[in-house]
């Protein structure tokens, strides 16, 4: 299907089903139940899950295929975001030009950064990319305030020019739209005690994510992708095969920079605001963590890693003491207090602690990331060849 092998087609279909049915899958618990706290099927989080999925997919094209570990990818996301919001302020609130320009600008910026940084390899490359990203962040937060809004960032304002859009009706705020369909538009489906939200912005982002994912499969399976894996495996042999590695790695760098820009543009399309923190080194580190956590070099891994981290950030951080009290209310008082005391450090303001512990557990017990966890579960069901497990996983390029 679509020029993919059977395995890849199956994977693509699974991803399509997961994204299309996400409003159901992410809302497994009925409204008002104690577990509803864990529901993630609301537009903002669903949008973020797929957008950061795109970001991680793109990062994986660079890191997973070539092995070059960029520590500055958030800069491309940020630059894309700024380009998109300026498009919205100056031209139109339609998201299409904003997203296109974000990809283009991020691509140009990554061409510049990549062209310089790829002169070095290994950790020297990582630090070069980090340096560019930190400079972008620092300047955007301070001296570039007239362009970036600095600390308070940029949002569309009522009195922006928007030369392609008509004048706003009184009392209206400018809203991002897709040829008139506003990103915030939602339908809610009520089934018994369940509510499922179908949000226009989410589905637009999801379609872009599916396309991005499809494209990444094609890249992974192409001669170009194979060359990149060859560069990662043995750069010496690449050179002595008459190939210059630099154009390949640079192309991979720019492609992944454009993915980051796409993610940045979509973030603005879904939530019309940009702040410089988006480019801080921790944001670059986050996408590295997403990719490794999910499984670097695998197709689906980065998407899983992105989903995992964003879910933790948005769901666990919102559990507070009164929610705990509700959960354990049925217990006898002493045990209730005891359980709350035990769980409390890990939720709400302690969500970072939980995340840190999970990072360690995953990397200690699942060296190939979450994908390997999935594979192990899969093998439990199959129980066929327990012998060749060890050699596998690490080098298998896909899944």
């Amino acid at each position: 299907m679509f020029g993919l092998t059977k395995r890849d087609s199956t994977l693509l279909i699974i991803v399509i089903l997961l994204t299309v049915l996400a409003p159901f899958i992410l809302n497994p618990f009925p409204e008002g139940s104690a577990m509803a706290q864990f529901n993630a099927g609301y537009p903002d989080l669903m949008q973020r899950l797929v957008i950061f999925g795109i970001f991680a997919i793109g990062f994986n094209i660079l890191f997973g295929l070539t092995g070059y570990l960029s520590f500055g990818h958030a800069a491309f996301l940020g630059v894309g975001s700024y380009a998109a919001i300026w498009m919205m302020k100056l031209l139109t609130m339609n998201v299409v030009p904003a997203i296109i320009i974000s990809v283009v600008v991020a691509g140009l910026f990554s061409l510049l950064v990549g062209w310089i940084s790829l002169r070095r390899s290994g950790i020297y490359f990582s630090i070069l990319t980090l340096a560019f990203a930190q400079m972008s962040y620092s300047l955007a937060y301070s001296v570039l305030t007239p362009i970036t809004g600095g600390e308070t960032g940029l949002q569309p304002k009522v009195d922006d020019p928007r030369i392609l859009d008509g004048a706003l009706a009184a009392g209206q705020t400018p809203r991002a739209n897709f040829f008139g369909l506003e990103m915030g538009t939602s339908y809610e489906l009520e089934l018994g005690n369940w509510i499922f939200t179908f949000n226009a912005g989410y589905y637009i982002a999801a379609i872009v994510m599916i396309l991005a994912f499809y494209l990444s499969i094609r890249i992974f399976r192409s001669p170009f992708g194979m060359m990149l894996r060859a560069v990662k495996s043995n750069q010496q042999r690449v050179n002595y095969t008459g190939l210059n590695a630099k154009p390949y790695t640079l192309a991979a760098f720019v492609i992944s920079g454009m993915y980051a820009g796409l993610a940045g543009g979509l973030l603005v399309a879904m939530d019309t605001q940009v702040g410089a923190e988006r480019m801080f080194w921790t944001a670059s580190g986050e996408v590295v963590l997403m990719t490794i956590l999910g499984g670097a070099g695998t197709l689906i891994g980065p998407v899983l890693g992105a989903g995992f981290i964003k879910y933790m950030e948005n769901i666990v951080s919102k559990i507070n003491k009164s929610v705990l009290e509700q959960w354990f209310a049925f217990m006898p008082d002493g045990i209730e207090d005891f359980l709350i005391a035990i769980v409390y450090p890990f939720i709400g303001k302690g969500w970072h602690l939980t995340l840190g512990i999970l990072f360690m557990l995953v990397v200690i017990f699942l060296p190939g990331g979450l994908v390997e966890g999935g594979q192990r579960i899969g093998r439990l069901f199959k129980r066929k060849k327990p012998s060749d497990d060890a050699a596998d996983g690490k080098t298998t390029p896909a899944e």
Partner: protein
Amino acid sequence: MSNSKLTRRGLIKTGAVAGAAGLTLPTYLRADGHAGFTNAPTGDTVTLGFNVPQSGPYADEGADELRAYELAVEHLNGGGDGGMMNTFSSKALQGNGILGKKVEYVTGDTQTKSDAARASARSMIEKDGAVMITGGSSSGVAVAVQALCQEAGIIFMAGLTHSNDTTGKDKKANGFRHFFNSYMSGAALAPVLAANYGTDRKAYHLTADYNWGYTTEEAVRSSTEAMGWETVNAVKTPLTQTDFSSYIAPVLQSGADVLVLNHYGGNMVNSLTNAVQFGLRDKLVNDKNFEIVVPLYSRLMAKGAGANVKGIFGSTNWHWSLQDEGSKAFVQSFGTKYGFPPSQAAHTCYVQTLLYADAVERAGSFNPCAVVEALEDFEFDGMGNGKTLYRGADHQCFKDVLVVKGKENPQSEFDLLEIVEVTPVAQVTYDPDHPQFSGGNLGTCNPGA
């Protein structure tokens, strides 16, 4: 076909029946428009969203804000001793929730990042059905969340935000700020500084290199220069700076005799500690004692800087040692519940919650436009800062501002500042179109749906 911009969850009520495009199943579309505004509470509860920093450097300030919110909710629902509800000049609140609906709340972590703060706020609006969002500990977050609430049709009651921009160039009709701002700090501080240090002074500014720093420097400069001070130099310092030695060291060489630290949070703790370390305060320059000024003080910052704050002037929105009835009532109930006195951030957040609840009661509706109308040009008293006006033109509160200085002999770890002067509101009031606040457009209220 009905569009809801940002919709609410939480309570299920059957709305109009509609067929959603592309779905073959019969679907029950809940039209949010039926109540005319986003997240109209339909059951017997109403949900508020408390969006405070729980991780990152301002986590302790966020924790104090959260304590205040929990206290406010308790009081609104008729629990505890009622706190400031007893001293508040408006008597609309009954202690039976808001408009008879029990107040529930959800919490989130802003991380002091505008992206995270908006994600958290959107989850409160979309998932939890919050009808009002409040909290925050920086102007970046306040401006970002305020813009979101304007778009979503939700009321935003800002927490701690001091930059002029929040009610200046970035003001929004759905957003309200109780906290004071850079301009007020400058206007309140200048006369006290003149009285204590004289009018012939040379000031050296160190300014955090971002919006809040710029507005604060501008405010303090213009009000001190108006009294006759000279500004020798103003140097911008990066937000991420931790060691300020290279900025502090040249101060003495410049011939300045006052150092103004336009820093907040960790920046301020470090720059003040470094300045004292260099022994600046022991020096005589131009035959005057060298002095340091910190335009915006908070108790947590004072705690972080320890003994270094002793005798240093600054301004603050509120302090627990105030002796008016409202402050006393609040300190009493907060102190009884938590065992220590509240911070200014806690005070602002508590007051904002009560003001919102009161506005809803008076308006008789949760509709944001009704709330905006009830809050605009609302005058009240008994909330700790004397007579206060919520100005309709920019949604900024006008009230007395406190000038404080670091206490020489603190009695406890919370007793770090003492009030030097309560600057009357008239002295800190400015025109809505004052140049330091120009470029904004309040717009009109947005009820959402």
